[in-house]
């Protein structure tokens, strides 16, 4: 079994490891303490593991780590901190847009990418954008409310 040296840029920092050819970005991230990236279905159906790569939300379970060399990867920890939540994180809290919270890191990254492309999306556009991120408890209403509120922009 062959191992490959790889250095990836995650949340603007370089992370090095030795990986197998087939190691997914999800495994790479979790094994390097980016456990905020959640493992859901592991086959690209649920969106829990969504990270932003070069500006686009992608399921990290369906991405080979070695394919990400030279790309910029962002996880939910790039958004905000306890003391200073990102507006999307604050809106999820304010709108009670999470219950168990397992889909939230992925949901936030998809929402972040959407708002970067399209700062004021309609509810329909929000629903379409998050259609690859499954939530099994809260339902989507409050999540759409939260993203819409940020898009409408009281707070940035």
């Amino acid at each position, binding site marked *: 079994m062959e191992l490959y040296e790889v250095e990836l840029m995650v949340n603007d920092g370089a992370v090095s490891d030795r990986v197998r*050819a*087939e190691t997914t970005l999800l495994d790479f991230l979790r094994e390097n303490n980016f456990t905020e990236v959640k493992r859901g279905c592991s*086959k690209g159906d649920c969106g829990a593991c969504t990270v932003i790569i070069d500006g686009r939300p992608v399921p990290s379970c369906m991405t*080979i780590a070695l394919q990400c060399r030279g790309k910029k990867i962002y996880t939910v920890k790039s958004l905000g901190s306890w003391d200073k939540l990102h507006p999307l994180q604050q809106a999820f809290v304010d709108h009670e847009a999470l219950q168990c919270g397992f889909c939230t890191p992925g949901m936030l990254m*998809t929402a972040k990418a959407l708002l970067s492309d399209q700062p004021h999306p309609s509810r329909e556009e929000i629903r379409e954008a998050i259609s*690859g991120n499954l939530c099994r408890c809260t339902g989507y209403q409050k999540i759409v409310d939260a993203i819409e509120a940020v898009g409408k922009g009281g707070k940035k």
Partner: protein
Amino acid sequence: MKDFKYIRPKNLDELLAIKNEQQEEARLLAGGTNLLVYIKEGSLKRATLVDIGSLAALKGIREKDGYLEIGAAETITDIMASPLVSEKLPFLRESLQGFANPLIRNISTVAGNIAEGSPIADTAPLLLVLNSEVVVASIAGRRNIPIDDFFISLGKTEIKAEEVIITIRISIPEKGKGKFVKLGLRKGTSCSVVSVAVWLIANGRGVEDIRIALGGVAPLPLRAVKTEAFFKSKILDENNIGELALKVTNEVTPITDVRSGAAYRSEVSAALLLKAVRECLGMEE
């Protein structure tokens, strides 16, 4: 025991050399949304993963000789975002909106969608109604495979072990209107139970030409030429259009699987065809 290797060819020549040397052992990795599933479920245990995701020679969307030429490594998202596609063939952009989900569209490709010879590849019916060609290359040279000859049997295509898809060519129709409709178990991230693509050239409601293709109802993506013949030269109205659409149930050979029963698939084929033709005619929205 899993035994995978990884290589990222720097250019097309290097890619073709690797493919020529390793044949089936070299598996092309663009979006990886098929390949990673095979690796995880264990049906693929050893291979060289040849990373073509960033290969410049397989990128680009351009117009040439009346065709849209789409590089094999272009993602579905990039195809949908292309101003050229929106201008020349909005049907393609609209149809791709039903493909998987936005996250998967960010990594997957049309070439990867058809390369596995799956009967439920959502892009296959689109290509079949649009006189498309799949351009493949090997160290020996290039050849264009007409889409009608591309699918051979379940899981098998005309691509040889030493060849790679480099471009998808889609002829830009001079007239007519297209519609793609699919039924899945839910809207997002869902394999099609049945999908139908129609390209209709009509004079009012008179059918000058029609192309009909379906996914999920035969071992291959199906071009429904017999049903097309029933439609040709007919003046369509509220009464005959449903009857004509029902003809497709004689042409499909669906199976029963985890997603649906054969009889249901047959009925849905006719219903979706009816819907697609009506939408092409502006009879419903």
